[in-house]
């Protein structure tokens, strides 16, 4: 009883405070306030559905960029080589770097066959350790050399050039160099049989310029093609090749993952929409007495439709707005947990979610209303 008198006081206070509030608005607000429980559960369903939808759409848009970053750890997807196995011109590296312009990691490689002190041939490569470290993250390196004349020795080359990890000599075309093993590298592939030097040591010893520049370009296949075209334009004397096995594998895995995610998103959104539909329809159906009273007091069909539609629209909009914020939070959390980088909020998703919510709520208001309209108000009021 106290609840009733309190609400009566509220009504009186509300009327005193805003004598010009339109009847329409007051009816909307009072309906939601008086049936808090039902309105609350409908709003909750709306929020959850909008949140899940927002999160799925955000993830779907962003997952490609996230997974591409993982694929960049495979290393180069573009290789720049001199035509016919010659050296690239000395300025080629700077040109490639300017063409890539920060859209990826690049590293130069130069190679010769040198001989150890007992005449064993071994492949010696010159490179930039700092760049290789970023480019080829899968290299298992015991210690990256930092001083000059320190070499990074492949696991299989180690027993040949420096079995006791002592300093060693290498000779190339009569010129010798004294090196100390700064660390070992293990990859399970050709790198294990090589000795790596810093580019400065390598060029001053052999006089051979880089013959290969490896580029790990970021972005979509179109971005990578654009970068390739730009490199080709800046360094016309070089041959620019895509690393097909990486590019094709990446495209396949990304395509399948996105398709799976899309299927999942479709299922989830469908379920959420049906959940909202059934809750809201229950809510509207539940208010058939209000409907009957309004109708018997002479409300037109248009006004009744407008009233319930406005109510549904207000609920849909409120649910979509709150759900959008929650969904952005969920997507960011999934990004942090799974990809260690937040999923950037896409505002472009908001109109989609809003429109979808409105459509579902309006549908769930109109369906029961069109059922109720056929019934005489007196029948409803008698509780039949």
């Amino acid at each position: 009883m106290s609840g009733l008198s309190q609400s009566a006081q509220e009504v009186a206070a509300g009327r005193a405070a805003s004598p010009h509030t339109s009847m329409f608005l007051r009816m909307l607000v009072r309906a939601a306030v008086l049936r808090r429980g039902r309105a609350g559960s409908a709003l909750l369903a709306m929020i959850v559905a909008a949140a899940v939808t927002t999160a799925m759409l955000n993830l779907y848009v962003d997952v490609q960029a996230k997974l591409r970053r993982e694929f960049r750890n495979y290393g180069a997807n573009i290789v720049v080589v001199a035509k016919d196995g010659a050296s690239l011109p000395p300025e080629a590296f700077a040109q490639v770097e300017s063409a890539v312009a920060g859209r990826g990691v690049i590293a130069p490689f130069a190679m010769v066959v040198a001989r150890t002190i007992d005449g064993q041939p071994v492949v010696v490569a010159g490179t930039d350790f700092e760049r290789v470290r970023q480019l080829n993250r899968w290299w298992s390196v015991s210690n990256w050399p930092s001083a000059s004349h320190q070499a990074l020795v492949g696991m299989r080359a180690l027993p040949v050039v420096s079995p006791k990890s002592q300093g060693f000599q290498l000779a190339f075309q009569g010129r010798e160099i004294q090196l100390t093993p700064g660390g070992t590298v293990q990859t399970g592939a050709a790198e294990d049989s090589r000795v790596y030097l810093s580019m400065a040591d390598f060029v001053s010893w052999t006089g051979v310029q880089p013959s290969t520049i490896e580029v790990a370009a970021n972005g979509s296949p179109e971005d990578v093609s654009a970068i390739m075209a730009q490199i080709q334009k800046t360094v016309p004397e070089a041959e620019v090749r895509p690393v097909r096995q990486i590019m094709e594998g990446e495209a396949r895995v990304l395509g399948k993952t996105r398709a799976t995610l899309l299927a999942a998103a479709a299922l989830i959104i469908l379920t959420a929409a049906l959940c909202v539909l059934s809750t809201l329809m229950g809510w509207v159906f539940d208010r058939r007495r209000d409907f009957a009273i309004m109708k018997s007091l002479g409300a037109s069909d248009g006004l009744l439709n407008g009233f319930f539609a406005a109510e549904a629209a207000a609920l849909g909009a409120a649910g979509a707005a709150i759900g959008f914020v929650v969904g952005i939070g969920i997507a960011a959390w999934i990004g942090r947990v799974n990809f260690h980088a937040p999923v950037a909020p896409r505002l472009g998703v908001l109109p989609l979610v809003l429109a979808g919510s409105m459509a579902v709520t309006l549908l769930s208001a109109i369906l029961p209303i069109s059922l109720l309209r056929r019934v005489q108000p007196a029948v409803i009021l008698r509780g039949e």
Partner: protein
Amino acid sequence: MFARLVYESFRRQKRRKLLAGAAITLGVTVATAMIAVATDIGDKINRELRTIGANLLITPQEDTLDVEIGGVNLKPPSDGAFLKEADLPQIKGTFWHNNITGFAPMLPVNVTVERDGRRLDASLLGTYFTKRFAYGKEEFTTGVRSTHPWWKVDGAWPGDESRDVLLGERLARRLGANTGDSIGVSGRSLRVSGVLSSGGAEDDEIVAPLVLAQEILGKPGAVRRVYVSALTKPEDALARRDPKSMSGAIYDRWYCSPYPQSIAFQLQEAIPHSHAEQIRQVAQNEGAVLTRIEGLIFLVTLAALLASALAVSAAMATAIFERRAEVGLMKALGAGKVAVASVFFAEAALLALFGGMVGFAAGGVLARQIGRAIFDSQISIAPVLLPVILAIAVIVTFAGSAAAIRKAVTMDPVFALRGEL
């Protein structure tokens, strides 16, 4: 009386029961399909990742260094050790043989190529294309076409017993040779069945059947290295440990997990005098990509389960709320809280079991469709999951009904009958 109440409720309120049952069925369908996809996605993506190339390499144990620059092998071809081709079927005899999707032996030989009086030094790579094998009762085919799927051939792939070869596209350009031409290779006349484009060192090489390479080298049955493509599990702390320092039980667990390391270890056991190692570029990154995708689908599955649980709860709550008058009548006639609640719970359980069963079947079909549409292969749901799914369906239905039932049994029958709630 109790059974009749429940039975009549289903008989007389078909529409409402159908709606609630449909919601439960839909929820269970979505949950079942997503669980099936989530449990299978690792295997499916793993197979897609195999298109990036082999992740394990077998080399002779006592090998000399590779001296190879830009596809040109500077090591004397007969130098160093070889593996025996006859040992290769043993790869299918290892513990994880079902995880090995293919292997390709390689034997590089230095040759001189002749065409129209032009002579070039080049490298000829002997390998399997699609070789048929039998190990025990098992038949399988393997070769570069499964381990190196990015190789594209303009023309036809040579047979493994033929004397046809593939010509790398850049070598073909330099020689001016094309599909169908004959080239001289170290004194033999061979037919070019196709031009190979690989985007790698093979573009400057000739690729030939293994037997032909062995014949040119004069070493029958010899293989220099073997690329193995295996489905592996992402590396964890256990994988990185040294098997020699493990105690019995931990060693068994390591040995029986498909880590790249343990499969390499088993390959080494199977092939005498060999050294097997993971190709880190492929193996390491594959683990990372796989973990990410599995994690993503797992989280999405949780979202799907949440959404379907919510849909079921909402449907149940609405269904019970609509029956306040009935509850009022029951209570006015003297039914206790327990009696009213048990009628509702019995109905909920029946709905959940029925909806769960239909949903499980529908979810299985849906998962199969998703598998066929996206991965061109089956995704099936294990029948053992049926009781689990049914239990979840019942729990979710109960949980969804609980609040509404509580409200229904505590309300005053007078208000309910007057329809004032």
